[in-house]
């Protein structure tokens, strides 16, 4: 489902974000991607989401290659790979339902199906009661749930999460993690970047990949 083949990413002024990283995440796996700040976690997610291209090597996601997917075709990848961020990135001034509906609309959902599908997605993340609330009326945990519902709008095969609990308290964090596990249980790959070791320890069933200064230094699957 996700493959990185000798991927390096070097930014200008010779800043090495990733160096010769190779990994494979098969279908249905739940993966924690961990490491200190600046280890390359966000860069790896960005490359998988094709928000950027590797300096060398190849990223393959759900049949699409970074070396063969043009800028105009990136939207195809994005519909197979959902992503959520630490800062939620919801549209202010629109309700939870409208935020999710927006994603459904832009991905070609027929108009009359948008509302019911958005409601189902909000229900899936436990936010039916808050459909009419705007982001500033929601807690951090609730906003992240809306962001997750939006990421699921195109029924992706992969869900990326970049420090999704970074701005949340412990209770909200547990709730979001539980939600990710539920999503993973449906067969979707979940790849979550986090530096929270407590979080990782609380889910021993998950695979753990560790980056350090852009290199892959630990893979729990190989350690077994």
């Amino acid at each position, binding site marked *: 489902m996700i493959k990185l083949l000798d991927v390096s990413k070097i930014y200008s002024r010779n800043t090495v974000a990733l160096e010769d990283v190779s990994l494979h995440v098969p279908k249905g796996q739940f993966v924690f991607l961990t490491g200190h700040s600046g280890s390359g976690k966000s860069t790896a997610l960005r490359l998988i989401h094709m928000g950027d291209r590797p300096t060398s090597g190849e990223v393959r996601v759900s049949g699409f290659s970074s070396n063969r997917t043009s800028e105009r075709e990136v939207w195809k*990848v994005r519909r197979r790979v959902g992503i959520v961020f630490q800062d939620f990135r919801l549209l202010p001034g629109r309700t939870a339902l409208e935020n999710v509906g927006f994603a459904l609309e*832009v*991905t070609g959902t027929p108009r009359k199906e948008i509302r019911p599908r958005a409601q189902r997605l909000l229900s899936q993340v436990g936010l039916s009661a808050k459909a009419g609330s705007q982001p500033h009326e929601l807690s951090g945990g609730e906003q992240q749930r809306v962001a997750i519902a939006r990421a699921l709008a*195109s029924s992706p095969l992969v869900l990326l999460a970049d420090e999704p609990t970074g701005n949340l308290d412990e209770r909200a964090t547990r709730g979001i993690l539980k939600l990710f596990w539920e999503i993973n249980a449906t067969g979707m790959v979940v790849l979550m970047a986090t530096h929270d070791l407590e979080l990782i320890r609380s889910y021993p069933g998950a695979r753990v990949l560790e980056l350090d200064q852009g290199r892959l230094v630990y893979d729990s699957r190989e350690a077994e």
Partner: protein
Amino acid sequence: MANSAKEAVAAFRRAPLLTSLSALMVGLALFVLGLFALATYNLQMALRTVEERVEVVAYLREDARPVDVEAGLQILRDLPGVEAVLYVSKERALERATTELPEIAESSSALEVNPFPASLEIRFAPGSRNEEAVEEVASAAEEFPYVEDVRYGREWVDRLFFLRQIGAITAITLGIAFAVVAALIIATAIRIAVYARKDEIYIMRLVGAKHGFIRRPFLLEGAMTGLLGGGLALLLTWGTHQLVFHFLFELDWVPVSWVLLGLAGGVFFGVLASSLAVHRYLREV
């Protein structure tokens, strides 16, 4: 396309103040261009009116034979650029003089001999009222042995054509300058409007919207803003025209083709500016 139009209208409703300001900026920029067009058109008309008075007069000798004059008339009529050649008899010349200058009437009645010569008045076709044509005809007329003198107000004709050239160069230069300024103002107004929605563009890219899906509503919005601004400019220009016409002096309104060109220009620059602004944000995710 219908969805894009709906989205464009919805965007207007979501941010009416920003949209209005954008349209206002576009309108004011085009208004300046509209005033310039109004001034240019009226200057052009004024020059044309003066140019219509450009003519060559060949004064005939007393002993000019009618058959020679008739032949000469035909030759002059066939010259390129000549619209008409009119024979003015001595009697007709006297009649004109006494009509146009009443003070002559009294003194001319005391004269035994009509002092005014017969003449050939040569008028030029529109588009041929230029130095070369005038000089060519004057030279041709001077060749006739029965022509005493040829006059065409050389000095003021030279000045007129010089003024026309200067006017044309100035109009083109200033027109381009105003158009560039208007284009920049329109581009800035549209960019501000698109910038205000860059989060939406970002999210659309994030969740997998196609480029065309993202761009189309913005292009339509750009066209609508350009059209609104163009309409506002038209209203302001027309209002200025009416004020000047009623309170200062007579002023012609510009041709419909110029109005349509102005509106089309507003739409074109609106679309172009939108396209460039959206393109920038499409590359960010």
